[in-house]
């Protein structure tokens, strides 16, 4: 009975008394509103109050738990490192077709040089190398060694420039040249600032203190871009004054590249004479194409398959991690299986499933008799035995795992007893740990209470008279059990099995300690990728697959048992 309905009969009485003979109006609540509306309002208020009580926790769980899970799922497809580190290169590569079997054009190498120069100054190029190395072995070392040699070509150019005019090696001279006069073009600096922010992932604050003039930005675009990179990095990351620092070597390379195309005869800005002098002396300057420069750093830079890999992984989102997680691989020619000797994840998933099934099976086998005994004993002795079941349930997981390590190892308690009994000779003690056997035994022990408790609660509801009735009707012991008792206990088996399976499929600690190399689960591999190999994307993809399996099982559990019926202790 809800309290709001209490007003109903009173209103009914009054309206019946007033409106004798009239058509009865809507029922009214005590305050004169229609009863229906009043009830609705009360219901709405009740709902709101309930939600207000739940809201803090819901927000808390969403922030501390659901958001991390969502973040992990996002990481498993996120792939913006390539396009963030090499923004111009990936853009330039779009038109390139890897099937021609030729390396990309000189223009791509030019963009690549300036992208890589900034990345190596910001120390981001090794991260990119590591990322691409997951897809193509050897790329990591190419990025690392080439990153060290990027200065050489610029230094060569600087030496030759200084022969023409000593001032080219001077920071203040460069600052004056690049700043120019007339309308400034700050958007170049702004764009480079954005590139650096994306690449490093840091928030850059402060003022760069440099803006090229419009005239110089149109005349020497590559130089201005390289100088802006230098200015942004020097001012915002190093915190130094741009005007007083010598520019990066990439700026000299940019200058030579620009002067090859630009016509400086009409330029009147500061230091225009120096520019013109270099332009005039250009034929005497020894120039190297960037393609041959990269080739000299590492001959694999002209290998089209390296560029094809960069091209394949340049989109912001990729299915590559998921494909890796199921032993496939995203190649420039489409999706392919990995080579036989690199396929481990399908095997690991299979092993995880197999061992979880074994653990579930042994839990059923061991749990059923105990649950039966508990359900059929008088409550006093059943309670006593229940303590034996609950004590391990309440004991720290690490305590139980360490106990199994003590019991199972070669100098452990079980082997000692077997040797003492003479069943095993001292020389060949059984190997029961660091393999699948150890994991299955230890985890069966750890998860057994999760099987016994639901089984017990179901068996308690089966009247023992049914068995007796079956027997008195002539059934043998076995028939009576198999045809009468067992079918009624199946819900308990189902609930316990799903619970044990869900718990075991994602177990980490116990396999890590007693599993060795053959008894580990997929979760150990996830942990390895997150803390040791640092291939977070692959770890996240493996986690996402595991999560999907668990959620399906959870859904099944909800349908069969209902999450509201989960009982503890």
């Amino acid at each position, binding site marked *: 009975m809800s309290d709001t309905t209490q007003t109903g009969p009173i209103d009914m009485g009054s309206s019946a008394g007033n409106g004798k003979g009239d058509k009865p109006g809507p029922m009214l609540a005590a305050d004169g509103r229609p009863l229906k509306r009043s009830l609705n309002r009360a219901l709405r208020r*009740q709902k709101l*109050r*309930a*939600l207000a*009580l*739940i809201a*803090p*926790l*819901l927000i808390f*769980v*969403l922030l*501390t*738990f*659901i958001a*991390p*899970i969502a*973040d*992990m799922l996002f990481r498993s497809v996120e792939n913006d490192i390539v396009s963030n580190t090499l923004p111009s290169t990936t853009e330039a590569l779009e038109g390139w077709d890897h099937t021609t079997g030729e390396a990309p054009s000189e223009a791509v190498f030019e963009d690549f040089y300036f992208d890589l120069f900034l990345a190596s100054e910001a120390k981001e190029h090794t991260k990119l190398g590591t990322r691409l190395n997951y897809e193509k072995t050897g790329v990591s070392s190419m990025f690392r060694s080439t990153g060290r040699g990027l200065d050489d070509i610029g230094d060569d150019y600087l030496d030759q420039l200084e022969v023409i005019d000593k001032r080219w090696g001077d920071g203040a001279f460069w600052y004056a040249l690049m700043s120019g006069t007339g309308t400034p073009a700050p958007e170049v600096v702004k764009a480079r600032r954005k590139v650096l922010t994306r690449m490093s992932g840091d928030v850059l604050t402060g003022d760069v203190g440099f803006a090229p003039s419009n005239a110089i930005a149109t005349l020497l675009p590559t130089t201005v871009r390289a100088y802006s990179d230098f200015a942004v990095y020097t001012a915002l990351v190093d915190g130094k004054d741009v005007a007083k620092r010598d520019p990066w070597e990439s700026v000299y390379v940019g200058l030579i590249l620009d002067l090859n195309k630009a016509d400086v005869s009409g330029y009147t800005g500061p230091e225009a004479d120096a520019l013109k002098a270099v332009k005039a002396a250009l034929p005497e300057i020894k120039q190297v194409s960037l393609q041959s420069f990269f080739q000299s750093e590492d001959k694999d830079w002209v290998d089209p398959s390296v560029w094809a890999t960069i091209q394949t992984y340049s989109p912001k989102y990729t299915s590559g991690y998921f494909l890796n997680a199921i032993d496939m691989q995203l190649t420039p020619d489409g999706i392919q299986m990995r080579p036989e000797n690199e396929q481990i994840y399908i095997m690991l998933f299979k092993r995880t499933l197999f061992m979880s099934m074994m653990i579930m099976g042994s839990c059923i086998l*061991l749990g059923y*008799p*105990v649950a*039966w*005994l508990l359900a059929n004993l008088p409550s006093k002795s059943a309670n006593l035995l229940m303590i034996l*079941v*609950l*004590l391990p349930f*309440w*004991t*720290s*997981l*690490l*305590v*139980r*795992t*360490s*106990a199994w*390590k*003590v*019991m199972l190892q070669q*100098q*452990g308690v079980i082997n*000692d007893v077997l040797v003492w*009994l*003479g*069943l095993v000779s001292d020389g060949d003690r059984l190997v029961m740990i660091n393999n699948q056997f150890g994991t299955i035994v230890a985890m069966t022990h750890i998860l*057994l209470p999760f099987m016994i408790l639901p089984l017990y609660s179901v068996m308690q509801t089966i009247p023992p008279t049914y068995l007796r009735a079956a027997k008195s009707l002539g059934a043998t012991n076995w028939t009576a059990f198999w045809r009468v008792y067992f079918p009624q206990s199946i819900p308990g088996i189902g609930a316990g099995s799903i619970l044990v399976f869900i718990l075991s499929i*994602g177990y*980490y600690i116990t396999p890590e*300690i007693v599993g060795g190399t053959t008894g580990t689960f997929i979760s150990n591999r996830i*942990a390895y990728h*997150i803390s040791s190999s640092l291939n977070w994307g692959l*770890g996240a993809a493996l*986690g996402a697959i*595991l*999560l999907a399996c*668990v959620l399906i099982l959870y859904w099944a559990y*909800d349908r069969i048992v209902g*999450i*509201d019926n*989960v009982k503890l202790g």
Partner: protein
Amino acid sequence: MTLTVSQPKPVSFAAGVVAAFGAFFGLFIGTSQGSGLIGILGGAILMGALAFAAVTFLRDQEKLAKWGFFVLFIAVGYLLSGIPGGVMGALMGYFFGHITFWLASGRYRMSVPPYATPGQVLWHYAFRTIAGAILVFLITPILVVMPLSFNAENFFTFTPEMLNFDPAGYSLRHYRDFFTNSDWQQALWNSVRIAPVATLLSVSFGTLAAIGLSQPHVPFRQTIMAILISPMIVPLIISAAGMYFFYSRIGLQGTYLGVVLAHAALGIPFVIITVTATLVGFDRSLVRAAANMGANPLTTFFRIQMPLILPGVISGALFAFITSFDEVVVVLFVGSAGQKTLPWQMFIGLREQISPTILAVATILVVVSIALLTTVEMLRRRSERMRGISQS
């Protein structure tokens, strides 16, 4: 009422069964001495004859005969292999004395229906033996850890001194190590610093939400419930990975606050489950009665509802506390060296530097968990009594 009969059984029956047991134990003693077959035969003949003599001559003086078995076995055991042999002998003497007269007097049929066939009786006891063995499997690891933690040596196994009950084989050095080693003390302190705060967070949010969830009209109840229970269902390694990624994005990775928040999230499902279960039996008219008498919602909550659901709240809190206190996967990822908790230290100990101090810590933790288990059980009984569900 079950009708039970117990009538004395012939000597041959008791002696035969006892001989079978004798053969069984003889097998082990035989193999440890070199020959299993002689052990089986010797055990069977010896025990059969002993049981035959005892039942024939001392059927009416049961107590005397049992003591006789007991003393005889202790003496034989002690002469054969000193104190451990004596202890083994005492156990076996008690077992054989008891079982001989239990069989001979027919008392073994007391717990089965009188119409049961011998086969059914045999199955009845075989089944109990199997179930007993499984219960032993459940409890042995814990029982083995406790005595080993008093080991005087740095071994993970029983030394000959321990088996001889030589006081020199036992010591408290691993406990001393635990209480003096700064690593362990720091870990204990971290655990004590993290678990209560996480518990407090999950209990205060969880209780409020459980009360909200148990109102009659809650929109999206199923979905909300699924979200709130999910930290218990999602494998810990996935929670840990997700939290590691996300918390490092927002700068919580490796901080005390990060670990506390993570543990609070993991403890919430337990609070929700226990408190909603308690609220199922809660009589809502009590709240209305209080409101009717002029109490505001806050007073009603603290004076009426809270005391009644307190047992559920406390057992939920204990679950949350244990979750945080026992948790190692998430703290491994979310925490840094500064948040090294007790389970983390144990995990390191098990993986890298094997030290029996772990066993001492394990024993302490078992004792603590027994204390908690008792508390929860008492609270559950109290709660049932208060709600009038209890049958007693």
